């Protein structure tokens, strides 16, 4: 268990909630931060802060160096070919919106296809709906079937053969099902058909080794706050040759070479896509978080996650009238479930009274949850600091909830 060695690094976990020790199982929504990240953000604001890229004084030089080093740090973390492939955004949502707007908005024509899966987070669905409507493109979906949330990947080749799909955008790990998608294989097949690929790595970036050269995707997006970093900072990785062809997403300061009253010339990527003063402290905090994750070991985190995912799913299934969603075999450390007729909000409120933080709702997966015949599920999601005894506590509290709300 990683928790034995690393739990103490997370100061927020050492508290009681409603009179019980906090059991934080809402990691798929947002993880907590180790002291090293909190301290580095604090240190940056106390010692080095100034605006980046335009000042000539010492503090601005330091801040710029730290900010650009953070970009290199992210590039190394993803094994990207160069730092210029890394664009800092507000998060996964903004990263995907950037691609939908600056790539798809210019490249797609009426009749072109966009291929998604039915398990996409709203952040990887709505931007495509908007751009499809704007240019007259068509959305296609790989169906997700059953409580296990299976996708028949053998259909992929024929869908790409029979429709003019220009981009395939899919999640690496489903935030509601915990299912891990074969992104490398999907990108390989998509490329064979000339389609561009985008991987939503929001649930995987902080949980496993991630190598954009090996996956060979064109775009990859993730959020800092789901991998021990600050909120409000995220990353878009883009293949350099594509980024070079794209127009700015937002415009203003920081992204221009020269401006006249009539027009402007843009900087090359990545600064072309970072209009305005960026979230400097966020980028620095994210780099510190990635350092931390590499110290813990990304393969070790993945193993720990998968252990919790599988054991949690197995133990949840032992509870009478409990329906677990997601794969029966290998899964990420995420388990969504429905307990009898108890509404997820009631269950989450009950668990909260016992100090357990769960998520209840549609997890920004409304179409998928509806397909399962539900409005909401409860979800427990684990991270490197969770312990076996916390899982015991969850199971115990779910039994108690059954009794409390049961007939």
């Amino acid at each position: 268990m990683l928790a034995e060695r690393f739990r103490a690094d997370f100061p927020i976990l050492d508290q009681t909630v409603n009179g019980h020790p906090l059991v934080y199982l809402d990691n798929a929504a947002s993880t907590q931060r180790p002291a090293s990240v909190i301290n580095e953000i604090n240190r940056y604001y106390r010692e080095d802060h100034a605006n980046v890229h335009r000042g000539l004084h010492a503090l601005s030089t330091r801040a710029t160096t730290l900010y650009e080093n953070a970009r290199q740090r992210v590039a190394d973390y993803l094994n990207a070919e160069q730092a210029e492939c890394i664009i800092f955004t507000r998060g996964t949502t903004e990263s995907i919106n950037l691609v939908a707007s600056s790539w798809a908005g210019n490249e797609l024509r009426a009749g072109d296809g966009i291929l998604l899966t039915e398990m996409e987070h709203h952040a990887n669905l709505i931007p495509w709906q908007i751009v499809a409507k704007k240019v007259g493109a068509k959305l296609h979906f790989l169906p997700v079937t059953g409580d296990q949330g299976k996708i028949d990947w053998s259909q992929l080749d024929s869908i790409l053969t029979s429709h003019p799909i220009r981009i395939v955008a899919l999640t690496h790990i489903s935030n509601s099902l915990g299912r891990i998608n074969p992104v490398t294989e999907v990108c390989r097949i998509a490329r064979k058909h000339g389609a561009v690929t985008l991987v939503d790595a929001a649930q995987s970036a902080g949980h496993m080794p991630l190598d954009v050269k090996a996956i060979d995707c064109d775009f990859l997006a993730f959020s800092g706050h789901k991998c021990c970093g600050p909120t409000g900072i995220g990353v878009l990785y883009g293949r350099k040759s594509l980024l070079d062809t794209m127009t700015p997403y937002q415009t203003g300061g920081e992204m221009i070479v020269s401006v006249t009253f009539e027009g402007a010339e843009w900087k090359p990527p990545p600064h072309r896509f970072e209009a305005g003063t960026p979230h400097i402290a966020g980028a620095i905090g994210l780099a510190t978080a990635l350092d931390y994750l590499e110290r813990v070991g990304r393969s070790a985190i993945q193993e720990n996650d998968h252990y919790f995912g599988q054991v949690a799913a197995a133990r949840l299934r032992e509870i009478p009238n409990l329906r677990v969603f997601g794969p029966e075999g290998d899964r990420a450390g995420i388990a969504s479930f429905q307990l009898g007729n108890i509404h997820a909000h009631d269950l989450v409120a009950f668990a909260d009274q016992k100090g357990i933080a769960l998520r209840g709702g549609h997890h920004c997966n409304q179409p998928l949850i509806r397909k399962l015949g539900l409005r909401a599920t409860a979800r427990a999601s684990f991270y490197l600091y969770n312990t076996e005894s916390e899982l015991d506590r969850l199971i115990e509290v779910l039994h108690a909830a059954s009794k409390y709300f049961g007939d």
Partner: protein
Amino acid sequence: MDFDELYQEIILDHSKRPRNSGVLPPPATRGSGFNPACGDEVTVFVLQSPEGKIETISFQAQACAICTASTSLMTLQVKGTTSEQALAIQRHFIDFLTKDGPSDGLGHLRALAGVKKFPQRLKCATLGWHALETALKAGG
């Protein structure tokens, strides 16, 4: 304990065995409430007499215990009242929850007082009441 205040016996009872559950066909009017935060949905059906009294009322809910119980209790409270009286009860109830308004006259609805300590559940407690308003206004 706060939690048992929120989920009082009467709330659990009405959530498990909602009163006036079901659909009314036209000429009954209907109104729906939707909570985007959780996907909960409540539809309230109202059949008014020529004099404007609520003769029959029913509802269908896919919702949490607080929402279902609040709507169930609402149907008992407003049955036999006029539109104006029902809307006055609605305002009285919402003021009770949001502005610490008086509880007299609210009867069993007072059981929802626990919601005051759980502001994130306010929407659950009032969803059916907003659906009622829509249903009444649909009746002119």
